[in-house]
C-alpha cells in the first residue's frame, strides 16, 4: 500500500507538469523529463508499437527541446496568436509502485482546452506517466498520451498536452 504522502507527492508532480504547460513555461516543463525521457502520443487506440505505426508525437528529450525552442521563439506562424491552454488532470491512480519503489506508473484522465484567437478546441484522453524518483522530486521517463480521438481528423496541434 502506498503511503498517502507518497501518493500526494506523485499527484502534485503530475499536476505541476500540467501547470507548467498552461503557464507557457516550456523549458521548465522539459526539465521534468529525464535526459532519455520520451513523450509519446500514438495515432491509434491501443497502439503498442512506435516504430511500425506512426505516432502523433514520439520524441525524446533532444527532439522535444527543438519543439520547445520553436514554442519559445514564437516565430511559428501557427503560434500567432500564442494559444492558451488549461489542462485539467484528474482520476489520478498509481498503477505500479509501492512504499519501497523509486519508479512509479501513474495513470490519469485529462481534459485540455486550448484557445487560439477566436478558436477554442478541447482535447480529452488518458495519460500514463512513468516517473522515477530523483533527489526530492521525480523525472519523467515516459509520458504516454492516449487522445480519445487520436485516429480522427485533426487540425494542427501546437502545445503539448
Amino acid at each position: 500500500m502506498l503511503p498517502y504522502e507518497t501518493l500526494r507527492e506523485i499527484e502534485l508532480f503530475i499536476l505541476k507538469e500540467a501547470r507548467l504547460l498552461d503557464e507557457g513555461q516550456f523549458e521548465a516543463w522539459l526539465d521534468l523529463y529525464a535526459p532519455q525521457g520520451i513523450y509519446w502520443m500514438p495515432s491509434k487506440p491501443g497502439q503498442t508499437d512506435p516504430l511500425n505505426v506512426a505516432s502523433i508525437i514520439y520524441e525524446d528529450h533532444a527532439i522535444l527541446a527543438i519543439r520547445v525552442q520553436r514554442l519559445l521563439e514564437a516565430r511559428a506562424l501557427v503560434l500567432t496568436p500564442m494559444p492558451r491552454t488549461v489542462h485539467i488532470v484528474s482520476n489520478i491512480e498509481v498503477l505500479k509502485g509501492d512504499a519501497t519503489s523509486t519508479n512509479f506508473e501513474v495513470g490519469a484522465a485529462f481534459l485540455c482546452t486550448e484557445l487560439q484567437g477566436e478558436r477554442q478546441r478541447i482535447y480529452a484522453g488518458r495519460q500514463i506517466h512513468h516517473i522515477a524518483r530523483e533527489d526530492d522530486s521525480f523525472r519523467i521517463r515516459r509520458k504516454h498520451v492516449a487522445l480519445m480521438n487520436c485516429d480522427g481528423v485533426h487540425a494542427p496541434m501546437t502545445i503539448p498536452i
Partner: protein
Amino acid sequence: MSNGNEAQTIDTPLGAEDIRALIRPDHVHRRAYADPQVFAMEQERIFGKLWIYVAHESQLKQPGDFIRTRLSKYEVLVTRHNDGQIYVLHNRCPHRGARLCMTEGGTSRTFSCPYHAWVFRPDGSLSSVPHPKSYPASFDIKDPQNHMQRVKNVQSYRGFVFANLSDNPPPLIEHLGPMTDVIDNLVDRAPDGEVEIADSSFSLEYSGNWKLHLENAADIFHPTFVHSSSVLPARKAPENASILDQDQTRAMLLANGFGFKEWEGIQLSGLDRGHTYMTNFYDQGVLANQKQNQDPVSVRYRAMLTEKLGKERADSILGMNRFNNIIYPNLIINAQYQQMRVTIPLSVDRTLVRVHCFRLKGAPDEIFHRAVRFLSNIGSPASMIFSDDVEMLERCQRGLATETGPWIDFSRGLDNDQTGTDGSVSGAASEMPMRVQFKAWLKHMTAEAA
C-alpha cells in the same frame, strides 16, 4: 421586395466564359478559391472527370477486403470481389438510400443494409432481400438498379488504384503520362518489387480551398519564410542528440533552411496535364540519398537492392531525387521517402489531406521505421513543419473570401520559363508550377461535354 430573381441569378450555372474570365496568364481571380459555384463545377469537371486515386492494392489483399474513401462529392467503397477484381461502389443502399458502410475499412464478404436487410456482394450486386415473396413480380434481384451503384472505370497502375466517373475516359496511363516514373521509382525501390501501404496514416483538415495545398506543395519559395520557426531551433540543436532517430528529425527540419544561393540546383518541372515536380530538393537525413548514405542500414538496404537488380540499375533507382511529385489533381508522391499525400476537397473552403507512407517489401525493417518517422514528422497534426503550412493556407482562404482586390499574382518567373516537348521547366523561384496547374484547371473546367 424580392421577386425571386436574385435567387435565380445565384443558381445560374457558370459557363465557360465565366470560368475563362477568372484566369489570366499571370493572375487568378479570387473566385477560383472562394466561390461555391466554382467548387461545384470542379467536383463535376475535375474530380468527376479525371482519374482519381482511391486506394492501394495492398489494402485489398483478399476477397472481401474494402476501404471507404471519397471520389468527387461521393462516398465510395473500394472492394475486392470474390473473383479478385477491384470495384468502386457508391456507399449507398439502392433501396432507401441509407449509407451502408460506417467503417473506414476491413474485411466483409457482404455489405448489408441495417434498415431492411438488403445484402450485397463485394461487387455491389444484390445477393438477397428478406421476405422475397412480398416483392412484386416486376422486382428483379439481378436488375442493376437494385445493386450498389458502381463507378464504371477502375484501373490500376503498379498497385495504385484510380477511379474515373466519366463515361469514356482516356486510359489511366495516358493521364499519368511521364508521372508513371515516380510510381515506378517508388515500387522499384523495394527489393521484392512491391510496396505495401502502412496501416497507419494521418487525416488533417484545414479551412481552405484544395488548390492552396496543391500550390503549396509545388512552391519552393515559401520554406525559407514559413518554416524558419523549425529551421532555426534545429540549427541550434546539437547533432545526433536524439536516442530515437539517428538525427532524422533534425535533418528534416534543417532541409527547409536554404538560402537563395542553394536554389541554383533546384529545377521545377510542369507537364501538360497539370502534373508538376521539383528536382534536387529536400535530400538530407538518413532516409534520403540512399545511393550514397554510409549508415549501416542504408548500406544493407543498398546491397539487397543491388543483389536483385545489379549495381547500375540499383544506383539509377536510388539516385532519382525528385520531390513533391504532384499527379493532377490531387495525388502527391515522394518516392525517395516512400510518402504519399491525397488532397480531398470537402467544400470550397474545407479540405482533407490524407498522409500515408509505404513499406518497401524486402527492405530492412529500419527503412520502414524511417518512413514512418518521416510520416510523423511531416504529416502528423503536431508536425513542426506542416502546421505552419496549414496556417498559411488558412490565412490565404480568409483573405480570398473577401471581395478586396480580386486578382492574385502568379507572375514570378514568367519571363524565364522554358517550354519543351514534355512541358515547362524553370528555376526554383518561378511560379510556373501553379501556372501549369491552372492551365490544366482551365482546360477541364471549360471542356465541352463529351
